[in-house]
Structures are given as structure tokens and as C-alpha cells.
């Protein structure tokens, strides 16, 4: 393994923070979904690194699951966003506070 | 583990001795409720007749029970025991003893006369009587139940219709009063539930059966000392124990007449009865420990209610405060830890129930005619409606403790019993007799005496039929005033064995 495990984790952590930042600050539902995707991918990178580090296949398997979940999440999420857009006419998350 | 053997002994079986009169009372209420619900809204007259019929049936059943109760045998009679949730030890367990029997009779009388008092009602008749039946169902259930869980359930069943009854059909500041009353009483209920669970868990018997839980040694002294105040305050709120009484004048004043009757006449007794049946039965040592505090609160409540009532200008407020004062006498009797005290307290529960019901019924009649209960606006009614005034004055006299009317005996016996234990507190309470005479007479003077008020000159007096409820109540007041032994004999069948069984 050329790249040290620590660097992989650092990359994953930075990606995750970027995702968090995107999710928390952007005033657009689509960008929030994107942020979530980024966080998922960060987790996937960490898993791949860990699988390599410990020579175990479970990490790889988890990544497959994560990709599947990410795909479904995007599709469901986008569907919800479209619905929300139809209802409120905007992508602003503060307009979706019916549950308060 | 000793609990195992006892669990065996408490095997849940159906145990019904003879005809289930107690269930019959409850079923009559339920049936009445259903019939009222099934009748169409517009047939007001029929709804009233049905209500009168069913409530009259319960009254007859109560009267029958009162006289059929075997006084020589005493103890629990008319027992009905059916397992309900065996895994938790909940039983449908009904029985009466000398403590609950007077209250049962009282409920029957007030229920029936309350229906008759509301005969003039025109607005949402169906809903009114349905809720009224529901409330009384809870009251009956509580008085006959010997299962802690059911007592709690019945307690809440009797309370929640009250909110609607006051908020919909009430008069003075009704929403406020309904909310205040409901919150107050459910606060009490919130104290009862933890207390109940606490006892249930610590008994280790896996039962809610009061007869099993009250066996000496079930709870340690420390547990009793802890649980007693929970029940005392929880039920005491409903009994108008000072300083948790402020719901009572407001609630009484706002409620429609028959609800005031049931409320002051019976629901406050539920509180006192709950203190007796649950707090005192289950935690006798806690009772002895806290009795001094109880006596203090009661004595102070007696004088406080009388003095605070002196300044009220609303007829119903006056009665509400007098109720606080009179229920203090019940509390004082309960706090003496003696046979006489219990006798007097239970007698006073009964007598006060009848007396307040009569007062509210009379006020209801007057209010229906004059559309006011401000004392300042009334006056001179004695000339216009002598008979209606007579009933009020009679009840006011009873409230002052005139001999020959039932309240006198309750007060006398309680004061005698209390004087032996708490002389100073009793003297303070006795001063209230003067004050209550002053304020009752003041009300009578300002409302009924004086030159006739020309505004009410054309009002008619009580007709014979509309006077029936008050006639019944006044008759009962006189009967037990002249022949108190009728009631005392019944109460003693419970109080003497109970006090003898107490660990000293």
C-alpha cells in the first residue's frame, strides 16, 4: 500500500467535513442532497482504506451497500424535492417546516 | 419468598354472592347513558324522563342496599369479584362496607334530585344528561370498588365529564373555571398514580386488591409515611383541603346547578372517601404519623373557608366557601385517628352532601327565575317565593349546625373526637361556627329578607312538581337530623373493626 492509511483517513475526513459544510449551509435542497452524497462517499473512502489496511473484505462489501443506499437515497430524495418544489415553488429548505 | 404463598392464597376466582346489586347500579347508569345517546336530540322531554327513570332506579337500589346491609355482621357485603387482568392482579372487585354505604346512598339521592333540578334545561339536553350519567357512573364506581386500579380509573371517569359540563353549560367565567378545576383535579390524579404504583410494586403481592394490601405488615412504616401524603394530597385536592381549595368556589359557581350539586355534594366526598379508603386503609401508620398536619390543615381550612366566604357577593361562591369550611370538618374528623372521628367524618360527608345539594338546588331554582346570583341584586325574595326561600333557609340553618338537621351530628361528633386529641386546633375550628352563622345569616338576610324587589314581583313560587327534589333533600336532612342513629349504626360497623385492627 503506497498511500499511508493516515492520509486516506485524512482525505475521507476532509471530504466528510466538506459534505457537512455543504449540507448545513447551502440554502438549496438539491445541494443538501449533494452534501449528503459527499459524506457518504467520504465514508466509503474510509471503508476502502480500512479494508486495505486490515486486509479484510467486509470494508469493500460495506462500500457496495453504501453505493446502493446512496443511489436509492438520491432517487427518493430527488423525488421528495420535486414534490416539495411543486408544493412550495422553491428549493429553500426553510419552506418545508410543516412539521414544526 | 413469602409473596409466592400469598399469591396462591389470592387465587383469582369469580366470587359473587347473590344478585349483583352493585354491578346493577353501574349497569343502570351505563344503560341510561346508552339510551340517552340513542334517543334523538329533539325529544328533550323523553330524554329527561329517561334520565329520571334510570337515576330513580339507582336511587331505589341504593336505598335497598342501605337497608339490606346486615349491620350485625358488618364487614364487606354484596361482594362481586371477577378477575380482569390476572397477570397484573387487577380485579373487578365491588363491595360495600359501613364507610361506603352512606356515600352510596348520598350519591343516589343527589343524582336523582340533580336530574329533577335540571328539568328546565333546554339547551343541548341530550349531551348534558349523557355526560351527567357518565360522571355519576364514575362516582358510583369509585364508592363500590375495592380494587385500587379501578378506584383510579373511576376517579378519572368521574372527573373528565366535568370539564365539558362546566365549559358548555356553565355560567360565570366558565372556561376559566372549567380549565382551573380540571387541571387542579388531574394534578391530584397525577399524584395518585405514582403513589398507587409505588404501593403496588412494594407490596410484592401482585395485586391491586385493597383488602389484601391493607393487611398489617404489607408495607413498612417508612413506605407508609412516604405514600400517605401522595394519596392525601391527591385525593385531598378533590376534598377541598386547604390550601388546595381554590378550585372549589370557582368551579361551583361556574357549574350548572345539578353539576354543582353533584360536585359539591358528591365529588368532594370522593376526595374525602379516597383519603379514607386508600390513604388511611393502606397506610395506617402513615396516617398516624401525618395526622397532626392533617388536623392543622383541616382546622385552618374550617375557619379560613368561613372567613373568606364572608366577603363573597355571589351566592354560589358563598356556598363554595362554606363547602370548604364543612369539608374541613370531615378532614378534622379523619385526622383524629379514633372511632368517633371516623364516625363523625363519614356522617358529615353524608350530611354535608345533602345540605349543599339542597343549597345549590335552591339557588338553581332562584337563578332560573331571576337570572342572577349576585346577592346585591336579589333581596326580598321571601315575599315573592316563600317556599323556595324556605328550602334555602333550611339548608343554611343546617349549614350553621342547628340541631334537628343532619349536619349538627357530624359536627358535634367530630368536634368531640377532635377535642380529645387536638384541643387548640378544635377551639380554632369551633370559632368558625360563629363566623359561619354570621355569613349564612347575612346571605339569608340580603337575599330573602327586606322589602320585596319590584323586579321580581311577578315571579311565581315553586310549583309542587318542581319542588320535589328539594322536598326530598329537606326530608332526608330532617330524617337524619332527628334520627342520626340510622346512619351512625351503619358507619360503626366499619369504623370499630377498622380501628381495632390498627397496629398501635
Amino acid at each position, binding site marked *: 500500500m503506497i498511500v499511508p492509511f493516515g492520509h486516506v483517513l485524512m482525505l475521507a475526513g476532509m471530504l466528510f467535513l466538506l459534505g*457537512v459544510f455543504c*449540507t*448545513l*449551509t447551502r440554502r438549496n435542497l438539491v445541494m*443538501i442532497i449533494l452534501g449528503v452524497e459527499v459524506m457518504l462517499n467520504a465514508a466509503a473512502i474510509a471503508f476502502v482504506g480500512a479494508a486495505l489496511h486490515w486486509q479484510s473484505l467486509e470494508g469493500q462489501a460495506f462500500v457496495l451497500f453504501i453505493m446502493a443506499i446512496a443511489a436509492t437515497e438520491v432517487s427518493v430524495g430527488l423525488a421528495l424535492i420535486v414534490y416539495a418544489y411543486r408544493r412550495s415553488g422553491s428549493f429553500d*429548505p*426553510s419552506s*418545508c*417546516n*410543516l*412539521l*414544526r | 419468598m413469602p409473596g409466592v404463598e400469598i399469591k396462591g392464597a389470592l387465587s383469582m376466582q369469580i366470587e359473587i354472592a347473590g344478585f349483583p346489586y352493585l354491578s346493577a347500579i353501574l349497569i343502570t347508569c351505563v344503560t341510561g347513558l346508552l339510551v340517552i345517546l340513542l334517543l334523538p336530540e329533539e325529544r328533550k322531554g323523553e330524554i329527561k324522563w329517561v334520565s329520571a327513570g334510570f337515576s330513580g332506579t339507582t336511587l331505589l337500589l341504593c336505598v335497598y342496599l342501605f337497608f339490606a346491609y346486615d349491620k350485625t355482621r358488618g364487614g364487606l357485603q354484596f361482594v362481586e369479584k371477577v378477575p380482569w387482568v390476572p397477570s397484573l392482579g387487577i380485579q373487578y372487585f365491588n363491595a360495600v362496607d359501613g364507610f361506603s354505604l352512606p356515600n352510596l346512598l348520598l350519591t343516589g339521592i343527589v343524582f336523582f334530585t340533580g336530574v329533577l333540578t335540571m328539568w328546565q334545561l333546554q339547551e343541548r339536553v341530550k349531551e348534558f344528561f349523557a355526560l351527567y350519567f357518565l360522571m355519576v357512573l364514575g362516582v358510583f364506581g369509585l364508592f363500590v370498588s375495592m380494587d385500587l386500579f379501578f378506584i383510579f380509573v373511576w376517579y378519572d371517569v368521574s372527573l373528565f365529564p366535568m370539564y365539558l359540563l362546566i365549559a358548555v353549560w356553565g355560567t360565570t367565567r366558565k372556561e376559566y373555571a372549567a380549565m382551573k378545576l380540571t387541571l*387542579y383535579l388531574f394534578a391530584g390524579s397525577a399524584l395518585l398514580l405514582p403513589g398507587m404504583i409505588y404501593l403496588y410494586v412494594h407490596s410484592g403481592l401482585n395485586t391491586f386488591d385493597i383488602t389484601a394490601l391493607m393487611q398489617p405488615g404489607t408495607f413498612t412504616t417508612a413506605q407508609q409515611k412516604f405514600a400517605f401524603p401522595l394519596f392525601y394530597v391527591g385525593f385531598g385536592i378533590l376534598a377541598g383541603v386547604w390550601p388546595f381549595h*381554590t378550585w372549589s368556589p370557582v368551579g361551583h359557581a361556574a357549574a350548572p346547578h345539578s353539576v354543582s350539586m353533584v360536585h359539591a355534594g358528591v365529588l368532594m366526598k370522593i376526595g374525602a372517601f379516597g383519603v379514607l379508603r386508600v390513604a388511611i386503609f393502606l397506610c395506617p401508620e402513615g396516617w398516624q404519623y401525618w395526622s397532626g398536619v392533617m388536623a392543622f390543615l383541616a382546622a385552618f381550612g374550617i375557619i*379560613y373557608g368561613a*372567613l*373568606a366566604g*364572608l*366577603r*363573597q357577593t355571589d351566592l354560589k361562591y358563598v356556598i363554595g366557601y362554606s363547602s370548604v369550611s364543612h369539608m374541613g370538618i370531615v378532614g378534622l374528623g379523619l385526622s383524629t385517628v379514633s*372511632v*368517633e372521628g371516623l*364516625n363523625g367524618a363519614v356522617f358529615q360527608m353524608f350530611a354535608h352532601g345533602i345540605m349543599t345539594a339542597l343549597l345549590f338546588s335552591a339557588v338553581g331554582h332562584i337563578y332560573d327565575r331571576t337570572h342572577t346570583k349576585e346577592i346585591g341584586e336579589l333581596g*326580598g325574595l*321571601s*315575599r315573592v317565593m316563600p317556599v323556595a326561600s324556605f328550602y334555602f333557609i333550611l339548608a343554611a*340553618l343546617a349549614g350553621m*349546625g*342547628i*340541631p*334537628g338537621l343532619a349536619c*349538627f*351530628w357530624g359536627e*358535634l*361528633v367530630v*368536634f*368531640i373526637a377532635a*377535642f*380529645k386529641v387536638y384541643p387548640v386546633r*378544635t377551639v380554632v375550628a*369551633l*370559632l368558625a*361556627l*360563629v*363566623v359561619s*352563622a*354570621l355569613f349564612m*345569616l347575612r346571605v339569608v*338576610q340580603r337575599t*330573602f*329578607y*327586606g*322589602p*320585596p324587589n319590584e323586579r321580581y314581583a311577578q315571579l311565581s313560587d315553586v310549583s309542587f312538581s318542581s319542588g320535589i327534589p328539594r322536598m326530598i333533600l329537606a326530608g332526608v336532612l330532617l330524617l337524619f337530623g332527628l334520627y*342520626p*342513629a340510622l346512619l*351512625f349504626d351503619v358507619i*360503626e360497623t366499619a*369504623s*370499630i373493626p377498622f380501628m381495632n385492627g390498627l397496629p398501635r
Partner: protein
Amino acid sequence: MIPFQAEDAIHMTVILATLTPLVAFLLIMLGTRARKNLSAGLSLGAIAISFGCSLLLLARLWNVREPLEYSTRWVALNRMEIPFGFLLDPVSLLMLSIVTLICLLVQVYSLGYMAGDPGFSRYYAFMSLFAWAMTSLVLSSSLLQLFIFWELVGLSSYLLIGFWYEKFSATQAGKKAFVMTRAGDVSFLLGLILVLVHVGNPAILEMNSLDSAGLMPSGILTFAALLIFGGIVGKSAQFPLMTWLPDAMEGPTPVSALLHSATMVAAGVYLFARLFPFFALSPTAMGIFLFIGTVSMILASTMAMVARDIKQVWAYSTISQLGFMIMGLAAGGYFAGVFHLTTHAGFKALLFLCSGVFIHTWHTNDIFELGKGGARRLKIPVIALVVAAGALAGLPPFSGFFSKEAILAALALSSHPVWLAAGLLGVFLTAYYAFRVLCILLFPPSAGEEPSGPVGGLAPAPKGSRQEGSSRTFIWPLIILAFLTLLLGFFQGPLQHFLLGEGKALLVDHGEQAGWLPFTALFLSLAGVGLAWAEFGRCGAARLSFVERIPFLRELFSRRWYLDHFYHFFVDRIVDRGFSKLFAQNDNRVIDGSIEAVSRGTLEAGRFLAFLQSGMIQYRLLVSFAVMVLLSLYFFYRDSGGF
């Protein structure tokens, strides 16, 4: 279990005597309110039966020395039995006869007096109620039973004072009477409970036997005696609870004659006589009773000296005479007190009934108006009035003279001469105020010429006819009572024999000593009469009494020594605006305030929490992220041993 099951003929008679008025009361209330004559007939019949029975009993038991007691269980409680019974002994029989006789006479008198009143039936119902309660009170065998009827008597007094309930002053007076006597009754009840706790069942005979001294420590006994005396103070309108009685004159005059002079207020003194041996166990208490009796007597006499209302004068005089009886009893003169009670009942009822005739004719209570109106032309009432006033003043042939002498003799034996001096002063004042009224009535300023007609339109025009119509019912009771007043004094010997028997230990032997006493007393009363005549009676008199010349005294006396001001202040300021307001405010502000503060706090807290729930997804994410970070930091440091 039936409370009324006659044991023998005497018991039967007793039950009949007490119960018939109750039956009459119930019948009138339930059925015959609309039919006036029937109501009156029922009531009169009942009281006549009662009176007959009491005479029968008196005759049967005249020579029976041992008290008879009939008693059945009424209420039985665990350790407390409340019996219902009758105790027949000389004092109760004597009192029973007085009560029923005066009830009967007053009811006959009322036929005329109350005629035409819209509440005629109600009046007779209440009268019957009173007759029942009073006869039962007199015959009660236990103190508790006595207390019960004591309260009922108070109730009927309240109802009868406020009989004309449309008059504000009448209802006010009724209320005042009830509340003030109630204050005394509470004290009575406390004393009763004290006795009950120590002795057990407070049967009167048991209390009076000397055992009760053994059962109660002497301190407690004195205390109980004083508390029970509190009831007497309330009922007999003694100092300091005396001011209700003059106000009670708002009731119809026959009521005043019956309840508020002859019988009901005398119940207090009767109770004293009833429990005399018990009270006598505590000399301290007796000393205090003597003091209170004396104070009441002097105060009330001074008030009577300036009153202008004829009924009020007699009311003050009643208080003062009751005080006099209590003095006599407290000084140990058992017979003297009871004898004065007997004679007083006769002549005081007579005084009121005579005044009633005047009031009924001229519709005013003011003595000066009555005098001007020509009161002296009503011959029989005037003669009766003179007889009664003579008895009140203690002039020789009349009954009051004898009983007063007996009391003074008892006082002469008491510990300190000051009591005797006070008693003699009382005799003088009594004679003075009694004859002051008499002189004002009989010698109006224009006594020279016959008043030609009603003065100032006071008297109704058809005076003659009105008087004719009701004269018989008015006159006969007066005549009977006047004869009684004349003759009763000469029965002192037999009565003494009847009450005391031969050589009872209770009797203070007032035989030979103080031979000067009767003469002094007589001289003083004559002096009082003379002073009254000099000021009001003789031609060209100033018609101004010596007290009225001193403004301070006049104010003091006519304002009842400021007792009413004190009570007014007490009720108004301390009870009403003090405690009551405090408690009502406490309810509103403190209790409800805190309850509302709690509910408002709950609402505010809920609102605050609701504000947090903005519904923004990103806030939630932020919070969960922050929590995750903090948790991970926590676990990280915990595992590395940082915490």
C-alpha cells in the same frame, strides 16, 4: 329503639306536654298555613294541653322529693351515648309551669295583637316551635340534650325577632341576636365537650352529684364551669354579650314578652340553677359569675335610665334583673335566684304586654309620645302596668319585693360587702327607671286638661272600636298576670319548701341576720320612686333626669357604654375587613396567583421549546452533527483516560 315509649302515666304526661307543640308546629307548617284561624287554634290547643299537663305534673309531684328521670338511648356511639330523656325535679317542674303558662297567655294575647298580619300562621308556627324547644329544654335530662334545645330556642328567637322580615332593622336584630348568642353557645359547647371528655355522659344529675369533683381536676372544673357560663352570658344577655337584647325588641311585642323577657332569656339563669351544685364546686368560678352578674345589672340599669323606647327600657331592665338573679345564685342563694326568676317572669311579661297595648293603639314606642297620646286613659293596662312596675321596683305587696329581698339576703352573706352595696344600688336604679317610665306615661306635661284627641295624628281615628274588637284577648292575660304578680310573693314559703325540701345542704340559711336589710332596700326603692316622681311626675317638673343633665353620662348610657361600637368595630374592621379580606385576597393573589404562575410558567416553557422546533432540516442536522462530534470527543478522551 323507639325514642318515645311511655313507661308510666307520668312519662306519658311529660311526652304529651313537650310534644304537642311540635305536632302543632309541623301541622301548621305543612298544612294549615293558609287557614289562619285553624293555625292559631292548633297552636293554642297544643300549648293549652301542655300547660294542663304541666299543672298535672306539678300536682302529682308536689311532694315527691327524689328527682324522676326517664331516659332512652337516642344515639349510641362507640364510647359515647346520647340519651334522650326527661328529668323531673322541682326546679324543672316550676320552670315548665312558668313557660307553658306564659306561652299560653301570650298566645291568647297575640290573637288580638297579630290579627290581620299576613304572617299570622307563620307566627303561630314559630310560637309552637319555641314552645316545644323551650319545654324540652327545661325537662332535658342531659346537658347535651339541653344544648340541642338551647340551640333550637335560639333559632326560634332568631325567626321571631326577624318575623317582620321586610324591615331591615328587624332582620339585622335577628342576625345580631343569633350571632351573639352563638358566640356564647360555642363557649357552652366547649365546656360541654370538656365535661364529656372527663365525666363521660353529661347527665345533669351525675354532673351535679359530687362525683364530678373527683372525676375532674379542679382547674379543669373551673374552666368548664366558666365555659358553660359563657353560654349563659350569651343567652341571658349578660355582660359582655348584652347588646343583642335591646335590639331584639324589633320583634312583635308578644314575642318580646315571651322570649326576650320571661322565658327564653331566663333559660340562661335556669341553666345556672340547673347546674347549681356543679358550679358550686368551683368557688373561683362562682366569684366570676357574681362579678359578671353585678356588672350586667349596673350597666343595664344605667342604660335603662335614658332610653326613650318603652320596650327598650324593659329590655334593659330584663338584662339587669337577670344579672340580679345571677348575682343571687352566684352568692349561693339558690332559692332566691329561682324565686326571682319565677316572679320576674310574671311581672316582666306583664310589663311587655301592657306596653304592647299602648304600642298597638298608638303605633309608637316612644314613651313621651305615648304619654302625650293619652296612655293613661286605658284603665286596665295602666293599672296592670302600675302593678308590674311596682313589682319591678320591689315595692311591698308585689311579688318582686319578696324575691328581691331574698336575693339581697343572699348577697349580704357573700364574701364582700361590695356585692351587697351593688345590689342595693341596683334596687335604687331599678325603682328609678321603672317609675320614670310610669311617670312619663301617666303625667304628660299637659296633664291638666284631658287630651281631646290623638296628638299629631299618631293614634288612628277609630281608636275606640279597634280597642273594643280585641279587648278581651288583650285584657284577660293582663288581669291574670297582674293577679299572679300580686299574689305570688305570698307563696314564698311553699315554693321554698317545694324547691329545697327540708334542710338541703345547698341552702344558704338567711334567717335572722341583717334585720335592717329589708328596710334599707325598701327605703332605697322608695327613694328611686320619689326621685322619678320629682323629675317627671309632679306638676311643672323639668322632665329631665339627673343623668341627662350630664352630657357625658347621657352619651355613655344611651350609647350602651360603647359596647355596640366595639362590636361594630370588631366585626367590621377586624373580621370583615381584616381576616376575611386577608383570606379572600390570599385566595385570589397568593394561592391562585401561584397556581396561575405555575400554569403561565408551563405555557412559557412550552413556547420556548416550540420555538426551538423551527422545522429547519439544517438546524437538526447541525444539532445532530454537533452531538456526534461531542460524543466522539467524549469517547475518545474517555478511552484514552483523559476524563
